[in-house]
């Protein structure tokens, strides 16, 4: 009888229903720890004993030639790829390697893909609505209503990404740059702690690039988000970076300010040398 009563107790949250997410512990500084992470595909070492630490509120740029393992690293952090060895921690409490993609997403790691993927048949507003941090189970989603609070949050993000006038436009008609911003906005709706941004300015005009640089530097900060940007465009990296990490063949080649990294002979050899010739 007691058992039945406990079943009928509506206040009770069953263990398997309780969200795994609990506040991210950043008291020790770093929000993301990768230690000795390795992964190989068919014998090819995509990531080789990679160590990386991102501090809370930091804006970090990651550069490296093609095949350096940048995208694979993002895949590991977001749970898409499981590493063969090593550990990955979010704050000092959450072991990312024990979680799947939706769990990691709901924990507060947002990822922006290289190609902008927004829901083209839905409006800008609806795109942001779906992205919002909310109860994402079936019945709450079915009965969800647009409360004033929700609308306010959406308007706030619309203002941040500069798409207020286009809120009722289907996302399919947006320009490439606008889609990128919408996608960043969708990440912001989830109130993430860590944003992973993959080549945000590829294919953008100068103006759009400037606008994106403003947006990203405005996002990072203590108590706000930490931002990790993977980018090829050296001009863009120079304009936003405080700390730069250079990846090469799956591990960290150099790390530091843009000036220090740019003058490192190893870096010049594998990566900047090529860029330097072009510039």
């Amino acid at each position, binding site marked *: 009888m007691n058992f039945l009563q406990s079943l009928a107790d509506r206040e009770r949250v069953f263990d398997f229903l309780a969200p795994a997410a609990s506040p991210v512990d950043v008291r020790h500084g770093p929000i993301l720890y990768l230690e000795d992470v390795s992964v190989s595909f068919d014998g090819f070492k995509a990531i080789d004993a990679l160590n990386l630490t991102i501090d809370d509120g930091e804006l970090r740029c990651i550069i490296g030639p093609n095949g350096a393992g940048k995208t694979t690293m993002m895949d590991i952090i*977001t749970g898409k790829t499981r590493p063969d060895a090593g550990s990955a921690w979010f704050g000092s409490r959450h072991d990312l390697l024990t979680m799947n*993609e*939706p769990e990691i*997403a*709901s924990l507060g790691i947002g*990822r922006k*893909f290289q190609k902008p*993927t*927004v*829901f*083209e*048949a*839905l*409006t800008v507003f*609806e795109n942001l*609505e*779906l*992205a919002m*941090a909310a109860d*994402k*189970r*079936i019945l709450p*989603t*079915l*009965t*969800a*209503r647009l409360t004033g609070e929700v609308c306010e949050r959406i308007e706030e993000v619309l203002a941040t990404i500069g798409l207020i006038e286009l809120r*009722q*436009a*289907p996302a*399919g008609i947006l320009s490439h740059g606008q889609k990128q911003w919408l996608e960043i906005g*969708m990440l912001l709706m*989830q109130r993430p702690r860590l944003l992973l941004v993959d080549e945000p300015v590829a294919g953008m005009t100068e103006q759009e690039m400037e606008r994106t640089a403003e947006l990203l530097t405005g996002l990072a900060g203590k108590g706000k988000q930490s931002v990790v940007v993977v980018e090829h465009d050296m001009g863009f990296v120079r304009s936003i970076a405080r700390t730069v990490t250079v990846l090469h063949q799956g591990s960290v080649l150099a790390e530091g300010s843009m000036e220090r990294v740019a003058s490192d002979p190893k870096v010049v050899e594998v990566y900047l040398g090529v860029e330097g010739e072009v510039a």
Partner: protein
Amino acid sequence: MWLTRPFRERATRLFLGILLAALALVTLLNLAVPAGHPLHVSTYTVTLLGKYLSYALLAVAVDLVWGYLGILSLGHGAFFALGGYAMGMYLMRQIGDRGTYGDPVLPDFMVFLDWDSLPWYWLGFDMAWFAFLMVLLAPGLLALVFGFLAFRSRVTGVYLSIITQAMTFALMLAFFRNEMGFGGNNGLTDFRELLGFDLRSDATRLGLFLATGIALALGYVLCRAIVASKLGRVSVACRDAEARTRFLGYRVERFQLFVFVVSAMLAGLAGALYVPQVGIINPSEFSPIFSIEVVLWVALGGRATLYGAVIGALLVNYAKTVFTGVMPDAWLFALGGMFVLVTVFLPKGIAGLLRLRPWRRAGTSQPTAGEAAT
């Protein structure tokens, strides 16, 4: 309330208005106009229209999963037939001892097969509430198990369509077997009464027609409510960018499963309303061709609109009745021709012509051009 949201939409009110007016008109022309008068609608026509309406409900169910969730089910005929069989089993038990062999419990085909007792799965079907529950639960359960396995392994696109075809084909072969206990290739027929009403009387037939029309209206409102909710927008998101939706933290496979099961139950309800009107249910309803035809109705009417599915189902089936009367051999060519013409000239189907938009907020739920082609 999410369920009442569709009543605030102009297009839904328009649809319901037209449907209810048509139901009232047919009733009036059947009852008040004397037979022989050119405007009289015969009971035969009423039953035919009732059959079309049950097909329309099936088409709405298919449009819910295909149009809004992007799952091209080529096996919805199976859910339709299961609902029909559940209703058929109830109608068989209602015959009682009035069958050819006069057995008070066993249906004729079981006596013929020398069975001495009812198989366990026939128990309870003498009670209407149990049978009507099974009309929803049997297709729902099949969809739940099938969908759970398919969506969990992330089977989508063409592969899923092929598996749904295999499912309905396998069920057809199974139901053809006499040992299954569903009447083999003759199916279930010779029905007498439903809830005490004589199935051969004109009043019952009109009642069944009206019940089907109301079921279509309710099914339409339910689907519209789902589509207009946030869950509907998540479905569209799953349809257009599944991986992206997953990254937003939605368990895509659960949403797919939910919508798929709701759709299967609606298909089962359509089948249950179909059976007493045509007077027979046999394994041919499981045939893969039938399920493909249903998809054609939706494509012709206009995908991802719901009302397009209704228009498509009514129009194609009316054309089928006319054609198979005039030139029986030409029907499949006519169907193929219609499909080609609509695909080429009306990529959004007949609904695309109407330019009705239940969602004023700029064509949100239309699939993109590339999507419609797949």
